[in-house]
């Protein structure tokens, strides 16, 4: 059962300019593995070396931030809409 994944502009180079792609999986982690097969290079933009979701990447299932659910183990179901949103952050020279 594919779910719809919204890809942010900065990652569309990896998805052949598509802003919306389909992926299959029962958890967010599974979806990421499926996306990596279809669009190699996407996983390292989302996950660090240990496989954890990067601190500055926000992922939502419908309206919910997966950080406040079960993270990568959060289950997804048919019809869910996943949004990937890189954070906006920075600072000043101290």
């Amino acid at each position, binding site marked *: 059962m594919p779910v719809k994944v919204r890809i*942010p*502009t*900065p990652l569309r180079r990896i998805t052949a300019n598509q802003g919306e792609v389909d992926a299959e999986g029962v958890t967010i982690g599974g979806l990421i593995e499926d996306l990596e097969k279809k669009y190699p290079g996407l996983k390292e933009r989302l996950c660090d070396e240990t496989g954890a979701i990067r601190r*500055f990447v*926000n992922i*939502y299932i419908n309206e919910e*931030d997966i950080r406040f659910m079960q993270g990568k183990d959060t289950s997804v179901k048919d019809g869910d809409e996943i*949004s990937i*949103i*890189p*954070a*906006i*952050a*920075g*600072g*000043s*020279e*101290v």
Partner: protein
Amino acid sequence: MLTIPKHFIDDIISHAKEAAPLECCGILAGKDGTVTDMYKMNNTENDPDKYLMDAKEQFAVVKDIRAKGIDMLAIYHSHPHSPARPSGIDTKLAFYPDAIYIIISLQDSEMPVIKGFLIRDGKVEETAIKIN
């Protein structure tokens, strides 16, 4: 080139002054390089020398921009005590290579300085902003 109506520039400067000594941040959106919508965002970073946009608010803005059929053109934040140029952390955390990063410096409080930059693959390039 990015064109920003003058009233948004005034709003950005007010936002920076209100937030000082902390950093302010926000998003400018529009079409064909002209800003039509400004979103003042909350900075959820506790460190006074950093900013992190409230993720939930940012998600709402992403959806609003999509619904309006416009694009995120620029991301702004303030440097309350330092010059208007991207810091090391700004460069490292620039995840939007197509957006113009605008920095408002309040280093000289009488004379705020606003500059725009493209930050791509760790390289910073100043880009002109037209105010009208």
